[in-house]
């Protein structure tokens, strides 16, 4: 792809800079924020695949994040090597997605939205009842706890998700997904295998969500099992993707950076959870006045910060 060499260069440069970040600073707040931002990039890109590219508004994303987090956490603390636990977490999330995907994709439009929302809620209720006690890292792990491996793991996750979305947006598979998003009946008529395409999108999306959950489980000192299944994870991803620009490669990245910075800043200056209310207002404003997100606004003002060709922008 000679046309894209410049973008690849920029992308590689950013990764290299991020990888060297701990050399420049050892302020733990900077590292923590970067960690969170990278984890949100991974999570929001994972939602972007199913919600942005395949156009299936999945409001049960927290279920897969939670499955990944819980599986990873318990396997890891039970003594399995961490990489194996992480992969099993993502794998479990994918298997669950494929199991429920076949009945869930019988539902279209609004019914799919409600169905996935309810599904995540079922899982949350069951987990809350089954695992009422928070999982805290054992003392020996706590003594050696360091942000650095967490940071690099988050970076790897975020890069992986961006690469995944990049290849999806340029593949036959991605074209199939976008065709389904635009008009499912027309896509079927033109020979797109609807169920297969949706299932693949769902599998990739939930694998990455499970990965995000696993990294989060590695990062957090204490985890309340019900919390990782909380709808907040779905809503955060949805807000980030919409604010940044749905169905684009760069949108969720911009969205995540913006989201984490604003969230930190607001929670310093506003009492309690009021920053969430500010996000709510912001989110409504974006939906009403900027349906293609920040990415579109940036593009309109001529400051192209896109990788490769024009991002795929979904019509509002």
């Amino acid at each position, binding site marked *: 792809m000679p046309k894209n060499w410049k973008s690849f260069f920029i992308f590689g440069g950013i990764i290299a800079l991020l990888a060297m970040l701990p050399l420049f600073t050892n302020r733990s707040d900077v590292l923590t924020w970067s960690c969170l931002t990278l984890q949100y990039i991974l999570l929001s890109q994972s939602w972007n695949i199913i919600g942005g590219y395949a156009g299936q508004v999945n409001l049960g994303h927290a279920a897969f994040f939670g499955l990944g987090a819980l599986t990873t956490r318990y396997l890891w603390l039970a003594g399995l090597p961490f990489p194996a636990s992480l992969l099993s977490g993502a794998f479990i999330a994918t298997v669950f997605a494929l199991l429920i995907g076949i009945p869930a994709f019988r539902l279209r439009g609004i019914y799919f939205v409600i169905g996935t929302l309810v599904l995540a809620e079922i899982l949350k209720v069951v987990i809350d009842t089954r695992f009422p006690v928070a999982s805290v890292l054992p003392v020996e792990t706590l003594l050696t706890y360091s942000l650095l491996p967490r940071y690099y793991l988050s970076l790897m996750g975020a890069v992986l998700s961006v690469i995944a979305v990049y290849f999806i947006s340029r593949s036959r598979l991605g074209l199939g997904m976008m065709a389904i998003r635009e008009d499912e009946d027309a896509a079927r008529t033109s020979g797109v295998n609807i169920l297969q395409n949706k299932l693949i999108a769902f599998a990739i999306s939930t694998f990455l969500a499970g990965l995000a959950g696993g990294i989060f489980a590695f990062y957090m000192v204490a985890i309340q099992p019900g919390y990782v299944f909380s709808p907040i994870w779905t809503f955060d991803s949805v807000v980030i993707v919409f604010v940044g620009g749905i169905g684009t490669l760069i949108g969720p990245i911009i969205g995540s950076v913006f989201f984490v910075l604003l969230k930190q800043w607001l929670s310093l200056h506003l009492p*309690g959870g009021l920053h969430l209310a500010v996000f709510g207002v912001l989110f409504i404003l974006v*939906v009403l006045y900027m349906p293609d997100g920040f990415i579109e606004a940036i593009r309109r003002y001529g400051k192209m910060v896109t990788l490769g060709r024009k991002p795929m922008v979904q019509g509002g």
Partner: protein
Amino acid sequence: MVQFLAQTFVNGINVGALYGLAAVGLSLIFGVMRILNVAHGEFLMVGGYIGFWLFKLYGVDPFVGLPLVGIFLFLIGIVFYKVVFSRVAKFHEEVKLKNSLLIAFGLYLIFPQIAMVLWTADERAISPAYSGQAFDLLGVRFGYVPLAGVCIAIIVILAMYLFLTKTYFGKSLRGTAESWKAAKLSGIHIEWTFMITFGLGISLAGIAGVLIALTQELTPFMGMPWTLKALIVVVLAGMGSIVGAFVAGLILGIVEAVSAIFMGPYTIAIGLLIFLIILVLRPQGLFGRA
């Protein structure tokens, strides 16, 4: 044993009537406007808290306060329609559904936080002096307050039904539900119809909120669970069916009460699971047309 089952049944109906009432407003808004208001439970919460305020600060009896809350929430509904939802009301079907869903979703982020500031995270309840009283009938306990809740729910829903089927304005509402473009061509003032519909739906949520506050606790985060309940009931009944929504509410209440005996804390999950199965097998709802 028979008494125990009958008591479970009665408890189920008490809760189910509230499910039905909460769902009717959601169903009305969806049926007429094709707007899925996932912030429905938030408005319900606001209604409950206003009732709580009226009772606590001004000593207004909750049953007297009920119409006041209804009117107030009606006005709130109109304001919210005018400020946000009217901007998406005339989009193409699918875009409208998605954007309205996202807007309501934004409201869901805002409401609990504001409620935290206004009413704190403490659990509140409206508890007038007579709230615990009950009478026995054949060994089954009937609480006065839950019974009144069921009666009010039935009256409100019957009134809604008569309003929609017998009055001119109700008919224009149903016409708009069929096709707003055709309704507009036949001279129905769409903007008005949408506004009133939204106000009515929100007002129903508020009334349900006060009745809920009389028998259960109020918290700033009760919105989403009640939205889910209302959604379940609406999908069970079939989108837009008013009386069906009430019947489906009763069914859900009874199913939950009965399964609570066997399932304990998993009751909510059972209710949701039954819902999912019905959703997959019969997406048009139990009472909906295919």
